[in-house]
């Protein structure tokens, strides 16, 4: 099974990704798509008068501060406009696509971060109402039920906590959890960069391959922000049994096929 994550960044062209996936489906290669929507969520949140707030954890990771209002705007953009827009694109190309969030059928279950330590205005603070969390269980029965019946799942956050509350979660790591849970051969993570660049933003400094053992070191040396999260998620997936993870460019023609044919940065054991 092939898992593909299409990022939420502005640069990701959903039409080319969907066209490529439709060709793969027609060629009899089953896949599951996981998508984001962070760029659009920021645009809509501003328009609705609830601009996005980001918090930086004490260890330097930035994440969206997800209060209830933000979570509902997140659902509107991820589960509404983006998810159904992707399913529509795929259905137009003859793919029997079916959209789900991590809440549906408890597809992506996890624990809500009780308290998050953040740096804000020069102070260290604990915030408790951040509806974010980490996915630790995937409903593979549901995925197998659907793929077995010929459907192509199109999945997005949020996930769901034990008590049934919706929780914001990182799309890249959710894709990694799904890939690991299904023992997928390949996880392709597409975004608006060619892969891990030794000298960002010089695209010729692409690092084609990183062994699992060297990922932490490479993450420290070459990556910041989102790329660091992608790398650590990729390493997690490989450690948990995924054959290989490819960080590749979504802005090219046939981005998924190119990644399968060796483009981007491959992470494997």
């Amino acid at each position, binding site marked *: 099974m092939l898992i593909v994550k299409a990022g939420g960044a502005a640069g990701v062209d959903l039409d080319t990704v969907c066209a490529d996936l439709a060709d793969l489906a027609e060629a009899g290669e089953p896949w599951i798509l996981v998508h984001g929507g962070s760029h659009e969520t920021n645009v809509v949140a501003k328009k609705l008068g609830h601009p996005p707030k980001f918090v930086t*954890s004490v*260890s330097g990771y930035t*994440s969206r501060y997800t209060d209830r209002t933000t979570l509902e705007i997140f659902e509107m953009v991820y589960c509404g406009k983006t998810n159904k827009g992707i399913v529509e694109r795929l259905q137009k190309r003859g793919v029997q696509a079916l959209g789900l969030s991590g809440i549906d059928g408890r597809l992506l279950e996890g624990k809500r971060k009780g*308290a*998050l330590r953040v740096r804000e*205005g020069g102070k260290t*603070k*604990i915030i408790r109402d951040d509806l974010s*969390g980490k996915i630790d269980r995937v409903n593979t029965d549901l995925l197998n039920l659907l793929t077995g019946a010929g459907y192509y799942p199109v999945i997005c956050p949020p996930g769901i906590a034990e008590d049934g509350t919706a929780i*914001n979660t990182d799309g890249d790591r959710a894709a990694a959890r799904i890939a690991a849970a299904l023992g997928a051969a390949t996880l392709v993570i597409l975004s608006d960069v060619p892969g891990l660049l030794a000298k960002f933003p010089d695209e010729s400094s692409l690092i084609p391959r990183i062994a699992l053992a060297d990922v932490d070191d490479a993450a420290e040396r070459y990556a910041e922000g989102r790329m660091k999260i992608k790398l650590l998620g990729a390493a997690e997936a490989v450690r948990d049994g995924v054959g290989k993870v490819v960080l590749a460019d979504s802005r090219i023609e046939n981005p998924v096929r190119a990644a399968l044919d060796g483009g981007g940065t491959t992470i494997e054991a």
Partner: protein
Amino acid sequence: MATTSCPECGADITSDDSTVQGEILPCPECGVELEVTALDPLTVAPAPEEEEDWGE
């Protein structure tokens, strides 16, 4: 300015106008990290351990 006492060692813990809800104040005596759980009246409790995680 408000004061309360450290739940670990009883020392005085004081807040000022810049203190915010959820802020972490180290106890000046025993150094334990305290979370400001309420401002009025000033209330503190041992700050939870850091669960390393990142949201979307």
